[in-house]
């Protein structure tokens, strides 16, 4: 996704990436980054929580329109309101993705 942002930005369209992995987006040289400490699949927050979703979107727009230089990163100060163990478990797919399945199979063979 940071690379996608770079290619679109290079065509003259300003971008901001809202991401759970802002350190990775920075390493990948995304032009503008908003970090959220949310589980995967939930970039804008909890389902049904309009106030939380709005805070994320507003921050993203503020960084998009207001950042003054390449490499700007702002992290959102919201704690995920679900205990870590439960949140960690619940974002993951019901069955391992094909690549994870393949890696697990190759590990069990070696």
């Amino acid at each position, binding site marked *: 996704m940071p690379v996608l942002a770079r290619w679109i930005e290079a065509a003259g369209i300003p971008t901001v990436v*809202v991401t759970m992995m802002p350190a*990775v987006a920075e390493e990948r*040289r995304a032009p503008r980054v908003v970090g959220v400490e949310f589980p995967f699949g939930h970039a804008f927050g909890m389902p049904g929580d309009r106030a939380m*979703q709005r805070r994320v979107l507003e921050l993203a727009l503020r960084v998009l329109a*207001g950042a003054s230089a390449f*490499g700007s990163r702002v992290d959102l100060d919201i704690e995920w309101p679900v205990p870590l163990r439960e949140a960690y478990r619940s974002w993951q797919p019901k069955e391992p993705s094909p690549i994870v399945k393949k890696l697990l199979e190759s590990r069990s063979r070696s």
Partner: protein
Amino acid sequence: MIVDSYRFLPRSFRPFYEGRGPFPGEGYPVWAPFAKRLAGSRIALLTSAGIYLKGSQSTFDLDGERARPEWGDPTWRVIRSSTKPDEVGVAHLHINDDDLHTDPEVALPLRGLDELVSEGVVGSAAANHLSVMGYQDRRLEDWRRTTVPAIIDHLRTEQADGLVLAPA
């Protein structure tokens, strides 16, 4: 607060992401200044949650990914800003999609953006937003050659002044 980028990531996945540096050939800065006021700008959204319109679009090719686990469907979908939550389908094998079905705004805040437009914070929303499925071949060749040029054309046609991208 500084976000812990690995808080929700399985420990064994971390080496695939941490300290990998820039994508090959992509270490230099790219920058397009945001020239207008936000209140006079048109904003587009892009999600990589594998969202598509159930009634009118094909799903992302998950069978292809099952057959070739290193590959992910590189195509893209246009999502009308007027899309209703019950029109949204999700095709992504790397996340649990229950919450996305319950409330697609968690990945693609169409209503949230419309609200900011109606309040005058944002000038307008693109009529058509964008969706991809974020799990891709590591070299991103199909995205680079085909998908991204098409997305850029789309954004120009939409006269988008800026894009908010949200990975799943």
